[in-house]
């Protein structure tokens, strides 16, 4: 990228100028052999070179005989295995193989290996866009240096997105784009009250409206409860509503306008019940109880110290009480974070058709279709074979699209009318009744010894779970936040308690890196505050306490191949940590770590008669670039050009089960499944199995987190306007311990997108609410970062071969979001001495804090 672009990516540059997969060979120029030149005369070969190498080949080859006899065995190995296959269009021609190379370190070229050759195998034929003899002034016998790309010809390369063309042309069909004959539109009547008894629902006026085809209330539906893990939510409120926005009735009509009109005409009489909105208040003895016997719900955690507790999760290592008693100093701080929407731009949409065979055909933006099928089977009281989830791309997930949402209602409306039904939420409904990130109140208490080592920590996190726990998939309905309370530090005595609480608010759900941006904001602000209190540079304080190789995290989890220190140092260096600052400018630092996800995945490969390799995956396209990574893995293993690999998403009939998207699992888990299927196919081919189509299938499952994690360190530089409190982020640095990067475009895209979401959480994203009513009901009031908010960004990638994924990849999708808010909060403190403990870090907060201190320091 040019200098205008302040954003740069070191890894990109390194890759383009060469890298570890280039192997050096030296040869002597000779003339006479021209097998390759003949080969190059074939049109399809030239086309293939153009496609793979990206240049028009000069019609002639440079022949080079290897000079170093010791290199010959390696070269023979490469001749056999490496490179990209050139598969002929018909069976009469012979194929070959291409190896990308650099001549004399600068001229891009390929080494061509025709399948049938007459001459000695130590002669290489090199093809370039130019006549090499002329350009390099070579004569017979002259030495020439070749760098040949040997391993990972496809993996690690910036291969463009598989589905890019459908997306840029508008051809990609998302759930809301599904058009079916006789389609009806479904809409939901939502509760206007946070907690109330439903006395009466009268729908006569709505029913009389021309074009209305069905109106359903809880009385028309089976009394089932639904949820991703804990089943505590009715399809439509039965007798009682628990949050503003809860579905109370559903309408199907000929047009969305009529459905909307009908919704307004349905009269519901309520009787107010006392409500509770503050999670701390909800845990008091006098608090209204939301669910009479939540413990009886299926999937409910057993421990329930208060009826309004959704879940409680504890971690304990060592003896924290003793640790705190023995500490030289103890620090305690409390932090708060607000409710925030995932902000995907595709509001949730569901289409249901009951087909002639009585099967329920579903199109919906759900990232875990196989789990959805199981959820639906129970919710609809149907055998799961009767349900088929058809794949559609998902217009942004970020954790928010795992619940069945409107699908059961669309089904019941379809059943009642005998016609397919489409339900698309408006963004107001998304903000009112989506599944936002949990608001939190986090208190950290940390003991430090005389040398500045953290010796003990207790943490208590209260997460506002809202009216139902149904949107959370974790087995214990908890968030990840609790176990991150120790951060990236070695803390021998540790206790964390994290509690999700029922309140009369919109139910909270998962959002990119669930619970972690909240907790990391607290932990890394707290870390800075301690460092300042102790008079230690925040970077030094972290150096002193960072978890090391073979050491344990606060939770007791032992780590290996730890790169915390390197990641920190890389961020500090790129962020000019020690450079002088202008007035009102400050720098802040924050770190986090995260394990790659767990779960099971399946993949199927078919080598088709036309030579294409079709990958059938169960992973829906949520935009992360997973399918492109899968394509690369297949191309790499089978040594075929990537565009020969076609990726398609199987519907839920295609496989038995699959964990789907979430929790930084896809590359690691589904990637391995794809890798295994590809290796099985390679073995089959090696055995001589040539009956086409040839099919292989693999499953991969992992339930152990393992000992390798990924670290992230960020430096924020901000400028504070002391008159207004306005904070401008001047630049960000994000350093990642990334394992092997399989696709730099996609990888960088995940970093940049996550970072800007983190910036949104840090600076602006907060759903306002009054008495349980969300007051920011449009994207005009709930602001998401825009182009001008993306700060100059430096990304540092520390690549190595230690990740748990295929080709030693690590997870990246949930890495860059979590440290941002703390890095910025710490920078604000550095700039003007104001310490903010509540997100978002608004100008107003800074302003009043400065006022109460009487100006900047």
């Amino acid at each position: 990228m040019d200098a205008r672009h302040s954003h740069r990516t070191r890894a990109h540059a390194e890759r383009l100028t060469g890298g570890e997969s280039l192997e050096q060979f030296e040869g002597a120029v000779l003339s006479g052999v021209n097998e390759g030149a003949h080969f190059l005369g074939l049109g399809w070969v030239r086309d293939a070179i153009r496609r793979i190498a990206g240049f028009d080949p000069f019609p002639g080859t440079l022949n080079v005989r290897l000079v170093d006899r010791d290199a010959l065995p390696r070269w023979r190995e490469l001749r056999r295995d490496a490179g990209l296959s050139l598969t002929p269009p018909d069976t009469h021609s012979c194929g070959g193989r291409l190896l990308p190379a650099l001549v004399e370190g600068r001229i891009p070229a390929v080494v061509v290996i025709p399948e049938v050759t007459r001459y000695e195998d130590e002669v290489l034929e090199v093809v370039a866009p130019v006549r090499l003899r002329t350009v390099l002034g070579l004569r017979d016998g002259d030495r020439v240096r070749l760098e040949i790309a040997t391993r990972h010809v496809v993996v690690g390369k910036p291969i463009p997105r598989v589905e890019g063309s459908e997306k840029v042309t508008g051809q990609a069909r998302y759930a809301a784009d599904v058009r079916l004959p006789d389609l009806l539109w479904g809409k939901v009547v939502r509760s206007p009250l946070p907690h109330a008894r439903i006395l009466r629902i009268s729908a006569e006026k709505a029913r009389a409206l021309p074009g209305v085809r069905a109106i359903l209330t809880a009385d028309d539906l089976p009394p089932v409860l639904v949820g991703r893990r804990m089943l505590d939510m009715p399809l439509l409120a039965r007798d009682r509503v628990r949050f503003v926005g809860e579905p109370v009735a559903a309408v199907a009509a000929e047009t969305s306008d009529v459905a909307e009109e009908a919704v307004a005409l349905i009269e519901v009489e309520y009787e107010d019940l006392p409500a509770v909105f503050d999670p701390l208040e909800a845990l008091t003895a006098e608090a209204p109880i939301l669910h009479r016997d939540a413990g009886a719900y299926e999937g409910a955690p057993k421990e329930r110290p208060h009826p309004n507790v959704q879940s409680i999760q504890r971690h304990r290592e060592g003896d924290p009480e003793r640790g705190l008693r023995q500490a030289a100093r103890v620090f305690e701080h409390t932090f708060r974070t607000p409710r925030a929407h995932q902000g995907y731009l595709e509001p949730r949409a569901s289409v249901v058709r009951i087909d002639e065979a009585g099967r329920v055909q579903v199109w919906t933006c759900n990232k875990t279709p196989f789990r959805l099928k199981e959820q639906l089977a129970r919710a609809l009281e149907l055998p799961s074979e009767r349900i088929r989830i058809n794949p559609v791309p998902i217009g942004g997930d970020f954790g928010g699209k795992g619940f069945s949402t409107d699908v059961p209602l669309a089904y019941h409306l379809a059943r009642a009318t005998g016609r397919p039904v489409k339900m698309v939420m408006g963004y107001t409904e998304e903000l009112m009744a989506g599944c936002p990130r949990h608001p939190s109140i986090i208190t950290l208490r940390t003991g430090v010894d005389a040398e500045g080592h953290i010796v003990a920590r207790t943490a208590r996190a209260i997460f506002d779970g809202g009216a139902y726990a149904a949107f959370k998939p974790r087995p214990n309905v908890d968030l990840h936040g609790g176990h991150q309370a120790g951060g990236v530090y070695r803390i021998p005595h540790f206790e964390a308690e994290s509690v999700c609480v029922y309140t009369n608010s919109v139910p909270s759900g998962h959002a990119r890196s669930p619970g972690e941006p909240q907790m990391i904001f607290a932990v890394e602000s707290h870390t800075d505050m301690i460092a300042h209190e102790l008079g230690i540079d925040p970077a030094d304080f972290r150096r002193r306490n960072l978890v090391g190789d073979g050491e344990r995290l606060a939770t007791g989890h032992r780590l290996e191949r730890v790169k915390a220190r390197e990641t920190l140092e890389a961020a500090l260096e790129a962020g000019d940590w020690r450079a002088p600052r202008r007035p009102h400018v400050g720098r802040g630092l924050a770190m986090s770590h995260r394990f790659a996800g767990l779960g099971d995945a399946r993949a199927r490969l078919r080598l088709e008669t036309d030579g294409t390799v079709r990958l059938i995956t169960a992973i829906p396209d949520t935009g992360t670039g997973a399918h492109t990574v899968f394509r690369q893995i297949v191309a790499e293993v089978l040594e075929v050009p990537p565009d020969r690999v076609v990726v398609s998403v199987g519907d839920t009939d295609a496989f038995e089960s699959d964990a789907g998207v979430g929790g930084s699992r896809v590359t690691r888990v589904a990637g391995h499944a794809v890798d295994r299927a590809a290796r099985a196919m390679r073995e089959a081919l090696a055995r001589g199995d040539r009956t086409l189509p040839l099919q292989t299938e693999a499953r991969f499952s992992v339930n152990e987190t393992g000992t390798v994690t990924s670290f992230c360190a960020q430096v924020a530089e901000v400028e504070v306007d002391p008159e207004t409190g306005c904070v401008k982020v001047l630049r960000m640095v994000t350093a990642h311990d990334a394992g092997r990067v399989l696709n730099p475009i996609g990888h960088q895209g995940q970093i940049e997108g996550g970072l800007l979401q983190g910036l949104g959480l840090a600076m602006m994203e907060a759903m306002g609410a009054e008495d349980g009513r969300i007051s920011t009901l449009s994207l005009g009031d709930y602001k998401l970062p825009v182009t001008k908010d993306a700060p100059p960004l430096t990304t540092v990638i520390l690549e190595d071969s230690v990740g748990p994924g295929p080709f030693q990849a690590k997870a990246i999708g949930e890495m860059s979001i979590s440290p941002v808010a703390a890095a910025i909060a710490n920078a604000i403190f550095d700039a003007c001495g104001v310490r903010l403990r509540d997100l978002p870090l608004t100008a107003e907060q800074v302003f009043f804090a400065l006022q109460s201190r009487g100006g900047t320091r």
Partner: protein
Amino acid sequence: MTLRIRLSVNGSAREVLIPSSRRLIDFLRDDLGLTGTKEGCGVGVCGACTVLLDGRMISSCLALAAFADGAEVTTVEGLADDERLHPVQQAFIEYGGAQCGICTPGQVVAAKALLDEVPNPTEGEIREWMLGNLCRCTGYYKIIESIQKAAGHARL
């Protein structure tokens, strides 16, 4: 009330009867099946529904179909020239400007409008022009890069 309107959509002339309350976005998506234009926020903020009305970009969620009477509408489906992608579309593929793809139609339409007016925009001009096209996946960096690359390509 039913209205008769005449308009051109992606170069083809049409004369249609629509309910007067039909929004342009619904007309495009539901009546013409041009579902490339997406509805995000529904209040003109996010830009997923960006189309060109007589060459100017607008939010089709805030326009009545009646506003397009006598006008020329260009949607994402009308950017590619036969099988050849518009340079902006090509660049969005190559440089990672598209991820989940839901904002992408709006992004490429807006970017095309930009390059039509300012063939060689600075990064600042790109950020200003694309201000109203929200993207939640990319963090905008690769969108900006894609547009720069497309501009470079268009120059060649």
